[in-house]
């Protein structure tokens, strides 16, 4: 399948297949206002299949969150129809008010007005997992 190239914006490539909608959600992109192309379950030489998101606007949003939702993605910055830079997302050391803790025993389920914080834990080896600041439960992609 083919989708027209973008002129100025971002291409997020190598998103795990089926996760593009989560990426859009976590990036806080409003699908009703953003000019973008969504390609899902396309062929990937590296991973078998993948999703791609092409966004025709400047990256004013927090790309760091990709390090949680799609750490193996690649971020391509496009200027005047050409890719001018390419990188993989870093793993942010903390995520604040991005995801909610799914542990029913966690204090965040009863205490309003506090931040939903997660931190990167690498004791089990790289790349590590995100754990709730309060109860240490591993973060889940909802």
């Amino acid at each position: 399948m083919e989708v027209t190239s973008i002129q100025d914006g971002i291409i997020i490539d190598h998103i795990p297949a089926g996760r593009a909608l989560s990426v859009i959600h976590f990036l806080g992109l409003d699908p009703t206002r953003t000019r973008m192309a969504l390609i899902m379950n396309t062929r990937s030489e590296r991973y078998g299949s993948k999703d791609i998101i092409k966004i025709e606007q400047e990256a004013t949003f927090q790309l760091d969150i990709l390090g949680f939702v799609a750490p193996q993605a690649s971020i391509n910055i496009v200027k005047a129809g050409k890719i001018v830079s390419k990188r993989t997302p870093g793993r942010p050391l903390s995520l604040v008010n991005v995801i909610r803790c799914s542990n029913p025993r966690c204090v965040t389920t009863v205490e309003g007005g506090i931040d939903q914080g997660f931190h990167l834990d690498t004791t089990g080896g790289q790349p590590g997992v995100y754990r709730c600041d309060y109860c240490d439960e591993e973060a889940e992609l909802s």
Partner: protein
Amino acid sequence: MGDLRGSSLVTLDDMRLEHIRSLIQRAAYIDGHRQQVAKTCAGRVLATLFYEPSTRTRLSFETAMLRLGGQVVGFAGAQLSSASKGETISDTLKVVSNYADLVAIRHPKEGAARVAAQAASVPVINAGDGGHMHPTQTLADLATIQARLGRLSDLTVGLCGDLTFGRTVHSLVTTLARFGGIRFVLISPDELRCPQYVLDRIDAAPTCSYLCTRDLTSVIGDLDVLYMTRVQQERFFNEDDYLRLRDTYILDEAKLSGARQHLAVLHPLPRVNEIAVEVDSDPRAAYFQQVKEGMLVRMALEAALLGDPLPGYEDEMEEN
């Protein structure tokens, strides 16, 4: 020790090893100088906020403060507190910070003590948050091991029973691994094995190792410490499995006959039937001493967080 003044204890993972060592050393000093330290915290007020009942732990915190000459206020059971009217933990702590110099909080939700410490303007001690953390229990365990064996590293430490849900086990393993030189022997039924993240922490400590086994009898002779835990019936799907496993791990004199003479048997108490009563009179039984050490380390901790120096302690340290 000025470093601990004004700080909170939510998890031992945040506390430097030198501070843990210092608290244990202070607990030993307090034990030998009960009269001298009896007015250390005179004029201080400890609030014990127990959102779920745990009478023994509360008594330990409160006795510790009373023995330092301070006083205690508090509640036990959420129905007695404004929590039942929907007040947040944060608001409760902001209010109580105006009354008390120090707070010990126990709450059924994991992470509640962190929320409390963030909201309070006085030091907060985590007295247990759900199945999560219970740092003063671990301090009591460490103090008992230090008192019995004279060291916290170069030890073979067996942990037996429910290693899946036992928070005291996870905290003790994690903290001992930081001291280093520990061979852990993890004794449990397959259903109640130690979780991976705890094993990862042992692996991450270069001088520590672990062995998982189901058989207590075959390893008891290697141990310096044996930490027994309760196997709770509700962890099992059927009664037969529970009864079979429960009885496998009962520590009695017959099993102890294969153990070393200096073995220290620990248990967080209360026990149900994991340890036969006949073991109580064996010199290797350390679980009632553990209760005493628990009160002493809480005394050391309360004084340290308040910044109240123990009379005579610094002089004694200089002499040694």
